[in-house]
């Protein structure tokens, strides 16, 4: 590590050279002064602003060249500036075809880190010898001597696998879905499993690349098992639960689960927790995978995505129950989002204090639409009852006070609400 710090410290020795200082100063002056003081109105158009910087750096390089001074360092910065502009233009182009969220994700996770990596390696390549830097020893870990090059390659491989394995995984899962005819949620599960597999293979390759010996891995595993027993049991339990749930298929992205009385859609199943979306208030619930593994889970998308729903309604005693039942079934069938098959079914549930209680049960295709469809059906029933003069009675309660002995007989006492003629609301 000392050697690495010595090497890095040595790069500053180039500042002893006027020719290097002049190139750096010119570049710094252009970058900083434009950003801080000059021409703020240019900054409204990022590409134009960057292009202005590029033009000035190129002019600075040309001037140095004309004066017979070294200029390739300034030109290198111009090259980076040009690349940055190209990437910005490419981003604008992508935004026309892709969702902003996806473009943002690709840029922050892949393209920008790649740019900074290229810039850093390019600069180091000019200041030092990458091959020499790569063989700088960092120490002996797990019985294996690790150098900077190995560590860099390992880190870059893992980062690339974690961030860039998404697209190949999506493509492979789509291909398998097409060829095997698996469901949409199955495809999403497959995507995740392919990503885990790619990252797993990457980790094995990295271990192999670093030359870590098998017995060292066993030692790590031994240490981990102790760690698992105490500190990270829950983390590991959640990870294994997540994998198991994916294989089992009970909690997969796209599934609809009943959480605390609300239907929620599974958005993602991560290493530690699942993220569910609740339609009612647009909330995202982060639930540890272990919860699904140990608790009972109600799902509407297990074998199919149909849901049977119902609306409760009351009608006055004077109406013929058969007519009411028939009307309820017809009304529910008339709602667009209620499935015709299985057909809606109305039932007389019982005799209440003020009315006869009915229920109309019907099937819907999307469990997440339940509340909205119930509302539609309830409104349709209101209109149908009004049209057929079927009364939905208010609850009526009659209280009679028993006269106490010796009390003067007085007028009858009724409930809080005086009896009224039932009307439609």
């Amino acid at each position, binding site marked *: 590590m000392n050697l690495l710090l*010595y*090497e890095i*410290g*040595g790069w*500053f*020795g*180039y*500042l*002893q*050279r*006027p*020719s*290097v*200082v002049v*190139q*750096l*100063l010119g570049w*710094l*002056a252009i970058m*900083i*002064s434009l950003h*801080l*003081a*000059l*021409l*703020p*109105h240019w900054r*409204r158009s990022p590409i134009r602003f960057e292009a202005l910087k590029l033009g000035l750096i190129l002019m600075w390089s040309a001037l140095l060249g004309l004066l017979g*001074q*070294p*200029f*390739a*360092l300034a030109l*290198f910065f111009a090259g980076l500036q040009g690349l940055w502009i190209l990437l910005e233009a490419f981003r604008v182009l992508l935004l026309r075809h892709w969702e902003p969220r996806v473009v943002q994700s690709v840029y922050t996770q892949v393209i920008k880190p790649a740019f900074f990596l290229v810039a850093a390696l390019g600069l180091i390549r*000019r*200041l*030092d*010898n990458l*091959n*020499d830097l790569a063989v700088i020893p960092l120490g002996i870990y797990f019985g294996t001597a690790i150098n900077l090059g190995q560590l860099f390659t390992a880190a870059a491989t893992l980062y690339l696998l974690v961030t860039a394995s998404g697209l190949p995984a999506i493509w492979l899962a789509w291909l398998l879905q097409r060829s095997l005819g698996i469901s949409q949620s199955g495809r999403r599960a497959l995507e995740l499993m392919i990503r885990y597999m790619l990252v797993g293979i990457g980790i094995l390759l990295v271990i192999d690349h670093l030359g870590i010996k098998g017995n060292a891995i066993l030692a790590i595993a031994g240490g981990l098992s102790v760690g698992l027993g105490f500190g990270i049991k829950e983390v590991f339990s959640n990870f294994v639960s997540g994998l198991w749930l994916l294989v089992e298929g009970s909690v997969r992205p796209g599934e609809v689960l009943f959480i605390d009385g609300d239907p929620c859609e599974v958005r993602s199943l991560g290493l530690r927790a699942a993220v569910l979306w609740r339609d009612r208030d647009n909330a995202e619930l982060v639930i540890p995978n272990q919860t699904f593994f140990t608790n009972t889970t109600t799902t509407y998308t297990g074998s199919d995505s149909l849901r049977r729903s119902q609306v409760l309604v009351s009608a006055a005693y004077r109406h013929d129950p058969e007519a009411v039942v028939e009307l309820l079934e017809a009304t529910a069938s008339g709602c667009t989002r209620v499935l015709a098959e299985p057909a809606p079914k109305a039932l007389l549930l019982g005799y209440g204090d003020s009315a006869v209680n009915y229920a109309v049960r019907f099937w819907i295709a999307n469990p997440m639409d339940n509340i909205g469809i119930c509302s539609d059906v309830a409104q349709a029933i209101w209109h149908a009852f009004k049209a057929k003069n079927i009364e939905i009675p208010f609850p009526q309660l009659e209280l009679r006070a028993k006269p106490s002995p010796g009390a003067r007989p007085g007028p009858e006492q009724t409930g809080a609400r005086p009896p009224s003629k039932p009307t439609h609301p």
Partner: protein
Amino acid sequence: MSPLHPITTTRLAAALLALAAPLALVAACSAPNNQATQELAGTVYLYIGLSPDYLANQTQDEHIRSLLGRFIKDFRLIHPRVGVQLLFFPEEEVQGEVTRRNRTGLGPDLMLVNGSSAMAMHLAGQTRTVPVPEAISFQVEPAMLNSFRSGKGLTALPVFSQPQVACYDRKQIKEAPKTLEALLKVSAQGAPIGLPLEPVDLYWTAGGFGATAALAHLLQPQGASAPWQELTPADHAGLLRWLNWLDQAGGQQRVNFYGSTDDLLSGLEKGDLAWIACRSRHLVRLRREMGSRLGVSPLPSGPEGTASPIARLRVWAFGRDSSPEQRRISQALAEFSVNPLVQRAATLSSDDALPVNRFVDVPVTSSRVLAALQKGMAQSEAYNLFNVNLLEGDPRESILRDVLTSMIFGAADGPQSSAILIRRLSQRP
């Protein structure tokens, strides 16, 4: 077009401050050293050109890094405020790397390269001439300095030499052959012999047949002012004898030619070869792999004279991008390396190179290896062969390689190859 915004005082002040900050930093970093005390301070960038076989072998690579590390450590005992950054490159890539880096101003201050590379870089204007004090240059073998003199200065300063010798397996050959005839006899008796295909490494065989005069004539430096003259009959005869011998050797069952030095060395290490022509810089690797099996001797002579190996000179070449302080440090470092004490210590500790300081006594009586190296160096000196006839990347080297390769693999015989060689090399570029 939006209206122009006036530059506010605050913004202007911020910009000036932003400019002043890096300026101050840079000024602090590049502040001139205290000249009154003459104390050297700063960082210099030292490029090391390594042969491909060095880079391919970890033992050799570690050896050179360790040697240089020790040398720099000693230098820093005297100049503790000096930092030295080492950058290693394959020898054939050094020139390209210097060209590229000179354009950025990030070129080397000092380069440890072969004499031929240093000459090529100087011809290309990539190195500078250094006024080495007489007290220093006086200590270096004059024959080695001749090629690097330029006016009152030196284009490069030799630091050590790597002569060519014979390396053999003592288990297979009890005593090293002293003549080329004996070498072929040893081969006929069943000992496999390995010879290099590279002209620079095969040149040693020419001396034994009196072909060096012809080759020196044909391989005159490109800028030679003397008009081209035909070879004398004696030169013709010498050249023909040499090529005939190579042709004959190529036909021997147990004489093999190798294009790769690494293959040649591996063959000896594994016992597949009993005798090879090697360079002193390979001894570290061979010693580690073969132990006491390794024998080292001078190269065998021929009927017309002694062997004519081209000794590689390792020299310091001085970069052009250095600041005045870096120039001082580079020169001090180079001069320190030819100090008799440093030269002697390096020779004794490495046992694979010879000093250039003529006042350093090489302990030939106590070391058979150093004695063989000394003899190899004397053979080179006799022919004035310090790696300067064939410049790095010189097209004539590839012509010589093509002709020799064709003959050794049976495409032409000795007389045909002689005619082709004379015809092609006499066409001055």
